[in-house]
C-alpha cells in the first residue's frame, strides 16, 4: 500500500516536473527532479566543464610563444576564460552531484581514472601558431554553435552559466579570427600555416558535434537532452549550422577544405559531406588520442604537486 502511494506521489512529481519544463519554467538546483534528468545533466555538464579545463592546455602552450605583446595578452585572456568557463560549469555540476556526495576532488579523480571524458578536439595536438588561431576561430566557432543551442536550457543554473560563457566566446571567436586574418594576409609561409591547420582540424571539427544518431557509435545522448529541453537541435542540425556559417568564410580567405565531396544540396537544403571516422570518438573517449595521455598527465602532476596547498588550507573539522 505504502509503496503504491509512493509510486503515485513520484508519478505526480514527475508530471508536475514535465509540466514545468514544458511551460518554459527553469528547474533550480534544490528543486525535485527525476533521477534520469539529474544524471543526464551531470554527464553533460561535467564533461562540458572538464573539457574547458582540458581545453585550456593546448592553447596555454601558445601563450608564451604568441608572436607579439598584444597577441600574448589576448591569448592569455582567452585561456583564462576557458578556465573560468570550467569553473562555472563544474560549480553547476558539483551542485547536481550533491545527493551522491561527490565534490570537485571526485570529478578530478574521475578524469584521471578515465571515467570523466573530455571533448575530442582537446585530445589533439596544437602544433603551430596557426593551430592556436584555428582553435579560436573554428573550434570556438563550433563550440559557440553548440552552446548557444542550449541557452534556453530547462536547467536554470546551466542556462545562466552558458549565458556568461557565450558572451565571452564572442571575444574568443574574434580573437581567433584576428590571428587567422593576420596569417591569411601575410607571407606565403604564414598563409600555409592556416591551410595546414584547416587540413589537420577538419575531421575533428565534424566529430565535435557528435554522431548523427545512435548507429555510428552505439549511443547518443541527444534524444534525452532534447526531451528534457536542455537543447533544441540535433547533432546533425548543429553540424549543418557550422557548415552554413563557416564554409563560405574559409573559402573567402582563399583556403580549401579537405573534403572534395563537400557541397550544399539546394534541393534538400543540406550540406553533403564526407563522413568522418566516427570510430575515433571512441578512441578519444578511451583517452587514446594523439595527446590524451600527455594532457592528462599535466593535469595530474599539477593536482599532485599542489596537494599540500589544499591540505594546508583545508578548514579544520568542526
Amino acid at each position, binding site marked *: 500500500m505504502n509503496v503504491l502511494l509512493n509510486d503515485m506521489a513520484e508519478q505526480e512529481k514527475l508530471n508536475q516536473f514535465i509540466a514545468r519544463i514544458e511551460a518554459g519554467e527553469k528547474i533550480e538546483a534544490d528543486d525535485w527532479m527525476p533521477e534520469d534528468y539529474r544524471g543526464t545533466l551531470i554527464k553533460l555538464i561535467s564533461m562540458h566543464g572538464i573539457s574547458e579545463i582540458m581545453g585550456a592546455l593546448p592553447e*596555454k602552450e601558445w601563450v608564451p*610563444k604568441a608572436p607579439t605583446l598584444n597577441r600574448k595578452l589576448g591569448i592569455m585572456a582567452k585561456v583564462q576564460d576557458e578556465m573560468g568557463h570550467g569553473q562555472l560549469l563544474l560549480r553547476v555540476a558539483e551542485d547536481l552531484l550533491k545527493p551522491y556526495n561527490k565534490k570537485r576532488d571526485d570529478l578530478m579523480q574521475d578524469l584521471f581514472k578515465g571515467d570523466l571524458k573530455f571533448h575530442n578536439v582537446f585530445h589533439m595536438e596544437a602544433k603551430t601558431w596557426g593551430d592556436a588561431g584555428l582553435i579560436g576561430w573554428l573550434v570556438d566557432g563550433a563550440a559557440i554553435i553548440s552552446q548557444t543551442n542550449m541557452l534556453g536550457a530547462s536547467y536554470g543554473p546551466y542556462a545562466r552559466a552558458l549565458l556568461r560563457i557565450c558572451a565571452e566566446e564572442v571575444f574568443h571567436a574574434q580573437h581567433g579570427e584576428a590571428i587567422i586574418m593576420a596569417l591569411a594576409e601575410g607571407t606565403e609561409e*604564414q598563409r600555409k600555416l592556416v591551410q595546414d591547420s584547416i587540413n589537420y582540424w577538419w575531421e575533428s571539427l565534424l566529430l565535435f558535434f557528435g554522431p548523427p544518431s545512435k548507429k555510428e557509435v552505439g549511443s547518443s545522448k541527444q534524444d534525452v537532452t532534447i526531451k528534457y529541453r536542455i537543447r533544441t537541435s540535433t547533432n546533425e542540425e548543429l553540424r549543418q549550422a557550422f557548415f552554413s556559417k563557416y564554409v563560405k568564410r574559409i573559402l573567402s580567405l582563399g583556403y580549401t577544405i579537405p573534403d572534395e565531396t563537400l557541397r550544399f544540396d539546394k534541393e534538400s537544403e543540406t550540406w553533403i559531406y564526407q563522413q568522418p571516422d566516427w570510430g575515433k570518438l571512441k578512441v578519444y573517449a578511451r583517452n587514446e588520442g594523439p595527446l590524451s595521455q600527455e594532457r592528462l598527465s599535466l593535469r595530474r602532476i599539477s593536482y599532485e604537486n*599542489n596537494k599540500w596547498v589544499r591540505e594546508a588550507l583545508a578548514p579544520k573539522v568542526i
Partner: protein
Amino acid sequence: MGNDSLKDIAIKELLLHLADDDFIHSYRGAEWLGLAPHIEEDVASSSIAQDTMGHAAIYYKLLEEIGVGNADQLAHDRPAKERRNAIILEVVNGPGYYMKDPEYDWAFAVVRNYFYTQAKAIKLQSLHTSSYEPLAEVAQKVQMELYYHLMHWKMWFVQLLGSGHEEAVSRMKAAIEKTLQDFAGVFSLGQYGEEMVELGLIEGEADLQKKWIEAVSPIFESVGLATTFEIRMAKGDGRNGKHTEDLEKALETLSEVYASDKAASW
C-alpha cells in the same frame, strides 16, 4: 646610439630594468596557467600575469617613443646578454617544462610574487616623483593595479605560513631562503645606478631595499618569522647583462614564433 648623453643612457637603462623585469615575471606567471592549486586561483592569478605583461608593454612603448626600438622587437628580439631583468625573476618555477612534467612549486611562486610585487610597489612609489615625467605618469597608472596583486600574494603568503601545516611552512621557508639569495638583484640599479639617482630618476638601491624591509617586516612578524634579512645577489647582477640558462631557454620559447619571421606582421 653613440651620441647618447649619460642622461639618455640612464633613462633607457631604467626603462629596460622595469620592462624586462615585468616581461619575464609575467612569463613565469603564464607558465602556471592551468596548473594552479585550484581553478578559481588559476583564473585570478592569470589576471595578474596579464596585468604584468601589460605593464611590460607600457615600458617597452616608452622605449619605443624615445627611439630605442620597436616595442615587440625589444620584447622578443634581444639576446639574454642584453636583457636587464633581475636574475631571481628568470629562475624557473621548478623542474620540468610548462608543457611537460612541470614540477612547479607553489611556495616559490607565492614568495617570489609577493616579494617582487612589494618591491615593484616601492619602486613605483619612488617613480611618482621621477624627474623623467613620462615615467612618473606611467608609474601612477601602473600602481593602480598593484593593490590587487599585492593583496593577493600577501594573502597566500600569510595563509600558507600561518597554516601550521608542517609541509606548507617548511616549503615556504625554503622558498623564502631561495628567493632572498638573489633578491638584491631586484633593487639593483646596475652600472648606471649612481647617475639615475643623481638625475632624480629614482631613489637609490639602499633606500629601496630599506623600504621593502620595512614593508614586509610586519608581515613576517605576523606569521612568526624573524626579520633579519640576508638579501643577496648570489647569481650576479642581471641589470648588467649577467644571466642564466633559465633566461636563455625562456627567451627561446618567448620568441619562437616571432623569430620565425621577424619582418612579418602577426
